[in-house]
Each structure stands twice: as C-alpha cells, then as structure tokens.
C-alpha cells in the first residue's frame, strides 16, 4: 500500500519537522489506517474492571507496615511540643517521625506535623491519635474578604496579599469614553478540590541502599528525582513504579508528604511502608482549584464590538500560593487593564487542577459576554463571532460555534428570560475554551522479538487517559500488526524517560517517539527479511500482520517473518522529534438546562462538546476525555464547594456526602464532536473540555429565567436569590 503522507502542519504548528518526522509522517486516518483514529477499546479495560489491575492502593509487600499522618486541627498555630511517648507504647507501633519540629508553624487545618508506622492500618490510626501535640493557636483568616481587609492584622509572614501579574494594553480610558454601553458586574468561582478516586499515597521498600516506590503519580520520573533529592540519595538508587493510578487531575505531580513519609519511615523501621491518605486528608491537603473574583467594567460599541475592559481580580490559592487566571478569556478587547491580588487564607494550598486558571477566567468572561450581548440586543452567538480572534487552525471557535448551533438547535433558543411559563424553564448557553497541549518529552524503545512479540517501552504513565492503549495503537498502526501483538510497558522509571502527565502533554509527548522508533524498527525488519522475500526491502510492506511483496507475490505471516530474525531481535530507540505533534486547541460547548423556579434546582439536560486535538489517536479514549471533562465541569457548576467554617477555620464538608459530586443520574446526555485535524499532528485533549461547561450552564440558566448567576456553584440558594433579584429588577 502506498502510504499517503500528510501535508505538514500549517502555520499554526511551531515545529519545523525533522527529517524523521517527514519520513515517518502520519498516514491519513481513519480511511487509510487500520486502527489509528478508529474507535479502539482500552487494552487494559478488562484488567481494570476485573480487579486484576493493581493500583498503588493494591500493592502489599511482605512484612509491610502502614503509616498515618498526624495533622493540625488548627488553621494556624505554633507547635510547642510533640510527645510520641504514648504512641510508641501503642500496639503494633514500629516507628514515628516528626515532619515538623517544635517551634514551626502549621498554616492550615490538615498541615502535617508527624507520622507513625504500625503493623496494620487500624493500629496506625489508633496510634496516631496518641501522639500528643501541644499547640499555641495563632490568629487566622479563612475568608478572602477578611485577608484582603487592610484592618486584618498580618497573619502571613510575607503579607496577607500580594499583587499578581497586571495588564495594561491600549488606551482604556479613551475606549470607555467611546463605548456606547459600559457595563459593570462582579463574578466569582469557588475553591474546589481534586477528589481523585484513588487517594494520594505510596508504598516504599528499601533493599540495601536502593529504594523502590510504588506511587500513585502523574510523573514517575519526576517523583524519582524529587525523592532522591529529599532523601539525599543518588537518583540511580530510586525506582518509581505506577502501573495504574486512579486520577490525579494535576494534584499528583509533586513528591509530597504522601511519598516522602513512607520512604523515611521505611528507612527508620527497616520494613516496607504503605501510606494512603483518606478522603478528609485529600480535601484538606492535596491541593485545590483557587477561588477567583472578578470585578469587571466592560465597554461595547453600538454595533457590538468589545472595546474596553477593566478588571480588579483576586482569589486565594491557600496559605501562600497564588490564584491567577486568564482574563478576559479568548474574546478580544483591544483596550484592557487588569490588576490582580493573590489573597492568602489559612487553608490548604492550591495545586494545578485540570486547565489551571481557565475555568475561572472562562466563567467571568463568558457570563459577561451574554450580558453584553443583551445590552446591544444581539444573539449571544453572533456577539461572540464578532469578538473572536481571527480563525486559524488553532483558533477555530467561529467555525465550531456555527457547526454547534446547527447541531444543537440554537435556532430554537428563546430570548433571555423567555424560557417558558410554568415553574420549569428551559434555556441554552454556549461557551468556548482554549488549551496548549503540546508535549515534547517522550522517549520510546521498540523491540521486535524473534517469536513475533513486539515490546514498546515508554516511561510515561496512564493517569486515566488511556496512555497504554495509545502506545499500542501508534506502534501497531506503524508496524502494520494487530494491536494485540504489541505489549506496551509504561509506568516505571526503568523505562525510557518521559515527562510528567500534565498540561495535556502526554499523547503529544510520546506519540512522535513511538511513531519514529516503530517506523525505524519496521524498516530494519524489512531489511533483514528482504533476502528471503525477493531481495528488495523497498518492495515489501506489512499489512494486517502479513509481510508481503507490494502488489502481490510472496508473503509471510508476522510470526513466520519474525522467526527469520534468528537470535538477534530488532531493537530501536528514538526520542521525540518535532513535526508529528503540535500545540494549541480550541473547543466550544453548548448546554441546555431546566430550572425549577420554585426550588432553584438546575438540571442539565444535554451538552454538546465540539473539540479538536490535532490528530486523534483513539477516538474512543479521546471522547472519554471530553465526557470526563464535561462531568467535572458540571460538578464545578452545580455541586462542588470547599466550605470552611468561618469561626473555627475548619472544613465542614471534607467527605463525599456534603461535598457534592454528580451521581450517575445527575449526568446529562453528552454529545461529543471530535474535530479530527490529522494535518496538525498530535495535540493533547485532557484539559480543555473541562473549561467551558460551567459557563455554558450558567448562561443557559440566565437564558431560561432572565436571572444572571455570577457566582458558582449554582446551589439552589444562589439560584433562588438571583431569581428574586431578577423579579425585583435588581442586580443579584
């Protein structure tokens, strides 16, 4: 089969293709490919559903101990004394560790102070309660407003607030003067936590001076480096394994206390040590998405052009970390000005969470866009089209809005507030998203073994996206063999380096290396087989697991062909090279909701997500990323809210009961349209789909009822308040 090669990416691809990238350019899928871009089920699906897949939580080692952290119950306090004496006498206790020393301060409820290791999980829990820590409590703040208030005494050594990056572009004052309408409103989104189904943790085992750590992580290689640094041992002495993991969403990149504590306790006790956090620890101390407040002034011309933007923004990333976000988001305001303040409160620190900053900036901007559209009496979609950046391969919103409008039935959308007569009102909303997703850190090793096995080794990890399946598809498609022939090995620092799985970079980071390594391996194989098949390697091809002379003639099964390798397998390594992957994606989403105006309950009826990610490797797993993103965003829109008690500073809902998450029945019909752009090469998709759903939902509520929801989550109490304000002609 003559491989039809792709045009190299247009201007939007920054990567000047390498010689190998040209030689092994992607074949146009899916018509011309056996599995690339097809709907391929996860290769490890059966292992996952049958329980055969072993997550860190499932790793048990002979003689293993359990560790348990002791955490501060106070939002801010000084540690006066740590007394381990009672804990050391407790049944089964084998070791203790002070994570912080007396004199140090704890900065939030859940801040780790110490840890114990015992021979069972129950003994460790009971013993942890016997560690007596004396605190001197200190003044605290758990509200952005109070930390921002200049009258509040200094709680944080570096100040209670800190200015973030500011923007000043164009002539804002003049632009506001020229604007036909000037609009002001304040938007805010809440702190939510990652809620990984598998909690943070590790199993650590020393053999002599070598450490093996099974870690639920988004980056085995990064954890190796951090563990070695924390323990002051050579990186060469650390092996990190993560075969399967139950979600990270950005919170599992650092080697935090959940990894370093068991490593240290394993050293102290001379036994393997397992430490897995519980749900409460997860909520308190493994990261969150910062809050975001935006006090906005926007100016728009009579014909619907956004001309001026001015915002004061703030938010909290916890006890010392920032809370910045992009604003305005995507839509072009030629003149704009923004000042941002990071506000510190005594609560767990933020960590990257699925598209850091974007859902927050998207919400404020997209709700504002609907309000502005009404001011100039334009359809919100028309209004958006007017204010988008120019269309480009990495900026397809205009096209997608039009495609989506047709598919979703936007023409049936009624004017704002005319969502019906009774207590059930329906409405539609839209929103857009942007993301990078250009990875570049993946090395691949491909072995073709004489018995016909193909082993592909990549030191990446599967954070739930289906990385193992992607590795297999790229290799199998390139080699021309069935997926079942390829054994993908991932999740181990003994495998060739790959970057951490964050920023939607994994697939774009690993696929080029696999494509080229497999291409080169195929070439090497055909060269070795040529003497037995007519002598000319360039006349050979591999189709559906058969090695054959192009256009008919002699052929061999894959197995028979590989047998001819004798005792010397094909073994090829390749790094990532530019030209087979790219960066920057766009997407839009539509949502339809029903609002019960007598209860304030919002039900999402359906969502349409249109998303590109360059070349789609596996349609099924790519769609899964969109489903997951949409569901997360529905949770952000309606349910999730980290609630801190104003008086004690403690979280009131560190569980999955009062910290609400959609149940299966709360998930609407979600339709996904993947816009395959094979000519751009591979780009990631993990993050963008979780950006726009929440704003589309808020806009749909506004469309249904006329009441504008500028604050998340859309709990009934907020919706009822907004409805009441709308009825009274007030701004909520």
């Amino acid at each position, binding site marked *: 089969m003559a491989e039809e090669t792709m045009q190299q990416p247009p201007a939007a691809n920054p990567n000047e293709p390498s010689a190998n990238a040209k030689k092994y350019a992607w074949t146009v899928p899916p018509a011309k490919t056996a599995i690339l871009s097809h709907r391929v089920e996860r290769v490890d699906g059966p292992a996952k559903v049958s329980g055969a897949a072993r997550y860190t939580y499932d790793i048990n080692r002979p003689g293993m101990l359990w560790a348990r952290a002791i955490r501060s119950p106070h939002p801010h306090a000084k540690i006066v004394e740590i007394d381990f004496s009672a804990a050391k006498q407790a049944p089964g206790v084998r070791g203790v560790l002070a994570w912080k020393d007396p004199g140090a301060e704890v900065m939030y409820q859940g801040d780790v102070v110490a840890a114990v290791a015992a021979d069972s999980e129950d003994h460790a829990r009971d013993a942890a309660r016997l560690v007596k820590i004396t605190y001197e409590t200190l003044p605290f703040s758990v509200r952005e407003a109070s930390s921002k208030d200049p009258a509040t005494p200094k709680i944080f050594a570096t100040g209670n607030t800190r200015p973030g990056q500011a923007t000043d572009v164009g002539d804002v004052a003049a632009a506001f003067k020229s604007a036909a309408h000037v609009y002001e409103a304040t938007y805010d989104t809440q702190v939510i936590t990652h809620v990984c189904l598998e909690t943070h943790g590790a199993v650590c085992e020393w053999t002599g001076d070598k450490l093996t750590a099974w870690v639920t992580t988004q980056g085995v290689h990064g954890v190796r480096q951090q563990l070695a640094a924390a323990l002051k041992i050579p990186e060469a002495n650390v092996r990190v394994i993560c075969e399967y993991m139950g979600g990270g969403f950005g919170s599992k990149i650092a080697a935090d206390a959940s990894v370093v504590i068991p490593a240290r306790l394993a050293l102290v006790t001379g036994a393997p040590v397992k430490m897995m956090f519980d749900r409460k620890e997860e909520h308190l101390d493994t990261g969150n998405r910062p809050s975001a407040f935006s006090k906005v002034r926007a100016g728009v011309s009579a014909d619907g052009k956004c001309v001026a933007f001015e915002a004061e923004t703030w938010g909290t990333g916890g006890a010392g970390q920032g809370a910045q976000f992009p604003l305005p988001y995507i839509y072009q305001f030629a003149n704009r000005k923004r000042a941002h303040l990071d506000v510190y409160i005594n609560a767990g620190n933020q960590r990257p969470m699925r598209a850091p900053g974007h859902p927050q900036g998207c919400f404020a901007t997209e709700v504002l866009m609907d309000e502005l559209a009404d001011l100039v009496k334009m359809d919100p979609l028309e209004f958006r089209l007017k204010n988008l950046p120019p269309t480009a391969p990495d900026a397809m919103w205009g096209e997608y809005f039009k495609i989506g409008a047709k598919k979703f039935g936007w023409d049936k959308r009624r004017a704002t507030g005319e969502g019906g007569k009774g207590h059930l009102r329906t409405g539609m909303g839209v929103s857009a998203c942007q993301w990078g997703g250009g990875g570049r850190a993946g090395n691949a090793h491909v072995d073709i073994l004489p018995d016909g096995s193909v082993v592909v080794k990549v030191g990446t990890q599967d954070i739930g996206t289906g990385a193992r399946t992607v590795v297999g598809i790229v290799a199998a498609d390139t080699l021309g063999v069935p997926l079942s022939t390829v054994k993908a090995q991932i999740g181990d620092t003994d495998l060739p380096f790959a970057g951490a799985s964050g920023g939607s970079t994994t697939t774009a980071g690993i696929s080029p290396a696999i494509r080229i390594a497999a291409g080169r391996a195929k070439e090497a194989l055909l060269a070795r087989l040529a003497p037995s098949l007519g002598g000319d390697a360039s006349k050979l091809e591999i189709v559906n697991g058969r090695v054959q002379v192009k256009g008919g003639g002699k052929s061999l099964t894959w197995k028979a062909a590989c047998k001819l390798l004798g005792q010397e397998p094909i073994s090829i390594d390749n790094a990532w090279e530019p030209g087979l992957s790219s960066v920057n994606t766009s997407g839009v989403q539509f949502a339809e909701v029903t609002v019960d105006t007598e209860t*304030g309950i919002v039900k999402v009826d359906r969502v349409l997500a249109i998303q590109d990610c360059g070349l789609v490797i596996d349609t099924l797993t790519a769609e899964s990323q969109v489903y997951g993103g949409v569901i997360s965003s529905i949770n952000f829109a309606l349910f999730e809210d980290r609630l801190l*008690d104003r008086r004690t500073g403690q979280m*009131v809902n560190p569980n999955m009961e009062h910290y609400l998450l959609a*149940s299966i029945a709360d998930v609407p019909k979600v339709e996904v349209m993947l816009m395959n752009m094979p000519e751009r090469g591979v780009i990631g998709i993990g993050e963008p789909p979780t950006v726009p759903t929440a704003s589309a939902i808020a806009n749909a509520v506004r469309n249904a009822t006329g009441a504008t929801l500028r604050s998340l989550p859309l709990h009934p*109490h907020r919706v009822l308040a907004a409805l009441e304000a709308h009825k009274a002609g007030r701004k909520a």
Partner: protein
Amino acid sequence: MKAFAYVSPTTAKDAIAALKAGGIVRPLAGGQDLLARLKDYVETADTLVNVKQALDATVTPAGGGLKIGAAVTLDALSTNPHVIRMYPALAEAAAKVGSPQIRHQGTVGGNLNQRPRCWYFRQEEFVCFKKGGNRCFSVDGENQHHAIFGNDGPSKIVHSSSLAVPAVAYGARFVVAGPNGEREIPAAEYFTLPTMQNVKKENVLGDDELLTHVILPAPGHIRSGHYEVRFKESRDWPMAFATVVVTMNGANVASARVVLGAVAPTPWRSEAAERALVGKPLTQATAEAAAAAAVEGAKPMSQNAYKIQITKTAVVRAILEAAGKRA
C-alpha cells in the same frame, strides 16, 4: 475505630439483655449510620449488639393496618405492595433514601433512630452540645442545612430520618421493648426537641430499649402526598420535604395532617397548614395558602432562609399529589 465486642443474639429478649453488657453498648442494624460514626471517631462503643437476627424483618397486616418489623430493610419497605398501596408516602420516602446500597442495608429501626447528619456533629473536631460540649457550632457558623423551625433549643439540627415524617403523618405508633416489657409510643411523641437535659438524644428511647415495630393504623379513606426537594438525584439528602395526609368530605378536606421534614430537630407538624386545608377543596390556591401557612413562624438562621421557599414548594407539591394532581 476503637475495637469493640460484638454479639449477635437471635431473640428480642436476648438482644435487650445484651444491651446491659456494661460500658457503652449500641444496637447495630444495617450499620449505615453507626459504623460511619464509629469509624470517624464521632463516638466509640465497647459492645455492638447486632439486632438484625433478633428483630422482626416482616411486614404483616394488623387491625386493618400494617405492622412493620424494625429489621425490615428500606428496600423491602419501598417495594412492599401493601405499603405502596396503603401508605404510598412511606414507600416513596424509603425509595428515595441515599442509594440502592444504603436502602438494601439500612433498616426501618436504624433509619428512625439514626443520629443527626449535621456536619459539625459528624466530625470529631467539633465537640458540640450533642457530644457533651458547650456550644452549637451552627449558630455563628455554616448553617445552610440547619433548622428553620424548632431552633430555639441548644441544638439546631434537622432530623435526618425520611421515614419519620410519613410515620408521624400517618399517625404511626412505635413499639418499644425494654427490660420491663413493651410500650407503645405515638410517632409524634417519640421524637424530641432538644433541651439542655436531653440534647444528646433525638428521641425518648432508653439506652436499654429497642424499637421493635412500627404500627400503622388502618388507613380508612385517606389520601396522601409526599414531596422531597432534592438537589442531586441520588446519594444525597432532601433539602426540605413534606408529607400530607387528608380525608375528604365530598370535594372538601375533612381532616388533614401536614408534616415537614429536614426543617426542624423533629418531624415538624404544621397545624396552621392543616387548618388552611380543612373545609377547602384541594386546589392550587388552597395548596398555596396552606404552604404559606406552613412556613409562617419560620425562624431562619444566617444562611438558610432559602429553605422557606423550598419548604413551601414541598408542601404545595405534596398537597397536589394528594389531590392526584402531581406537579
């Protein structure tokens, strides 16, 4: 959780005797509430007495009504054809609880005797009145789910049992057995508003007693309606709900019971709403008048005034359901 002794008697008599084992002894039914409390160190126990073998797990006809054993699961209750036909509000309340897992495991006795779901009560850190402390954290804390009625006492919880509300509305009686034999308590008198004396309990049951049966009187010609305002479709609690039971005299209401749930430390009977119904036809206008009457005198706390609107909605929709006009 702290280690405990476990006994599993097979008769009610032995179970009651076992409650006297000494130390802290707790009856264990489905464990959906008790085990979570023990695991979270909200409380500790020295002995658990499994009552699922000892107590009746059947629904039997009695005097034109039904006698429901305390060990009947919520799932069995919600699918029992007699319950569905005679006391549909009770069946519906049971069917809406939590999740299929909780309904298959949880029992009638455990549901009616479950402890509060207040987020302060449920966490070890917050030593509130109910745990021997000297404050209710909700007063100047996060009280969006707390009581809007009956909140003058020390604790501002809402009673968490969904079954308790239709039980009161249908005029159920609870059979309670102790060392000195059995007694019957009207459901409405079983649950107690918190005072400084009784704040550590939500009902009149003694530590040495068990709830053995719920007796539902012959329904006669009642009509009933039940409506729960729920944010999530499952694994969640109602924000407010209502059961309405009426008898008719021609087109007009002859007598009525309106009981509200998730709004007060006990199932909250609204006599004002009942008065607004009696003598009137079951129309939208009557329902709205009764709902307005039902929330008269509500005393919202700093964050839960929204529950007034939600409660009104529950009352209107329960009445319309009783009228056969489902909203």
